[in-house]
């Protein structure tokens, strides 16, 4: 253990955490503005210039509201649940490479060789927050929300895991930095437009990768409880679902945890399918610190674009019915992801 490693790691953790929390606040703002614009409204535009100080007003409101606790709740788990909803989403981003190098320091907090498995392991813990919130509230609607959430997340975790297997068959490594390096050498997995783009084998592989991407994207939507899969909170049928009994900042933590999960989900999609911090023509951080910063900017631009996609989907599609959701997960995406693995295996066997 040397002090340089500890120091740079701490700096990266604090920097990334601060940035992600800021991004989260502005994701809430963006959600409100984007939804408004898609519905021919204007959205929050009063606080500060064009409403840009709205997140601070929201935070102030959350913090200053009464810390109301219903009488019949199970106190310990009632307070534990919001923390459990938020923490896994934050931890997940620690293995995502969010930049190349800056002053020779790799821009990833923990470059472990089981990267994507770590992501799935921690992400699968996010369900505890929701289930406990539903159970400890000791009330009908939250309970139904919790039950829905646990079955939904377990169902879609399968598709999530199966959808990324083709990538790792191709890359031959679970380390996320290696996935990014592979995409730098061979073109982004979703769109192999550079490198030797005339190679028909690569184009053939792009088809199962597209299927993978669609399945993964939909599974991430389900994992982060976004519409059209927001059955655990379904305002219209469950009166808010698992967080019905929560008020003030405890509700705020559920609310913000959803957005952090969205950011980390986008970051993982960017890393797996959109080449991470790479953009054709921009060298990595070893050519000067300015390029290191540009790489980070490229990464977060891609993340923001995907967050916009999430919002776009949310304000377009209606919610699924419960049985439709389950049938879709188990009879459709599961099979597609499974068949996709075989397609990639055959292509890899005969073409590469």
């Amino acid at each position: 253990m040397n002090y340089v490693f500890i120091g740079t790691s701490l700096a990266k953790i604090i920097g990334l955490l601060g940035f992600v929390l800021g991004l989260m606040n502005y994701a809430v703002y963006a959600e409100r503005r984007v939804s408004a614009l898609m519905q021919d409204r204007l959205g929050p535009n009063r606080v500060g210039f064009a409403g840009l100080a709205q997140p601070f007003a929201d935070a102030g409101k959350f913090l200053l509201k009464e810390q109301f606790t219903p009488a019949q709740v199970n106190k310990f788990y009632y307070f534990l649940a919001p923390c459990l909803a938020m923490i896994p989403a934050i931890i997940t981003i620690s293995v995502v490479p969010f930049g190349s190098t800056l002053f020779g320091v790799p821009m990833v907090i923990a470059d472990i060789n089981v990267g994507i498995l770590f992501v799935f392991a921690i992400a699968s813990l996010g369900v505890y927050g929701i289930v406990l919130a539903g159970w400890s509230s000791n009330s009908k609607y939250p309970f139904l929300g919790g039950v829905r959430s646990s079955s939904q997340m377990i169902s879609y975790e399968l598709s999530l895991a199966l959808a990324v297997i083709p990538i790792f068959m191709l890359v031959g490594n679970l380390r996320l930095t290696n996935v990014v390096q592979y995409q730098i050498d061979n073109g982004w997995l979703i769109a192999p437009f550079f490198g030797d783009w005339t190679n028909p084998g690569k184009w053939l592989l792009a088809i199962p990768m597209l299927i993978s991407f669609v399945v993964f994207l939909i599974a991430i939507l389900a994992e982060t409880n976004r519409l059209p899969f927001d059955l655990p909170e379904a305002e219209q049928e469950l009166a808010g679902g698992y967080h019905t009994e929560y008020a003030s900042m405890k509700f705020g933590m559920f609310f913000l945890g959803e957005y952090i999960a969205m950011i980390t989900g986008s970051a993982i999609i960017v890393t797996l399918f959109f080449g991470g911090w790479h953009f054709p023509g921009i060298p990595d951080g070893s050519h000067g610190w300015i390029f290191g910063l540009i790489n980070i900017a490229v990464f977060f631009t891609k993340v923001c674009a995907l967050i916009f996609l999430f919002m776009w989907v949310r304000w377009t599609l209606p919610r699924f019915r419960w049985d439709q959701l389950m049938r879709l997960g188990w009879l459709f995406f599961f099979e597609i992801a499974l068949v996709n693995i075989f397609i990639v295996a055959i292509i890899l066997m005969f073409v590469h």
Partner: protein
Amino acid sequence: MMSPFLFWIFAILMLVFGAAVIINRNPVASALSLVVSFFGLAALFLSLDAYFIGVIQVLVYAGAIMVLFLFIIMLLDLRAEELRKINWIASAGGIAVALALMFQIFSVVEKFPAAKQSFPPLAKPAPDDVRQIGLLLFNNYTLPFQIIGIVILVATVGVIILSRRETR
């Protein structure tokens, strides 16, 4: 490798929460204690550079199986369980048996010559344990691996058939 300090923290965490699983009267508290215990175990695996096993421990046990357990426990009536009296005689007997077993294990282990000397330091860990496990599973142990897969498939199909009959 991990410093002994961290080893003790995670070992004690694991044991304390493992004991909490059986001490707690509330089944949800037991289930969550088991989750924390799994985390301690996963951390100990990580300390041995077994990243794959450690992460799979969290992914499979804490992330999937315990969620299903919690799902079932939530549907139970917890009041009845909390009101149940502790059977002190049975508990004392259980503790006595456990202590006797522990004593036996210690006395057997103490006879081993290897227990007297400290372990040699581990060889430099394999650079990629995921790859090693994959190669081992799919090259040397292909047939057992496939058989396990089929056994699990049979179990899954059996569960579906059983649950179908119930609803009819």
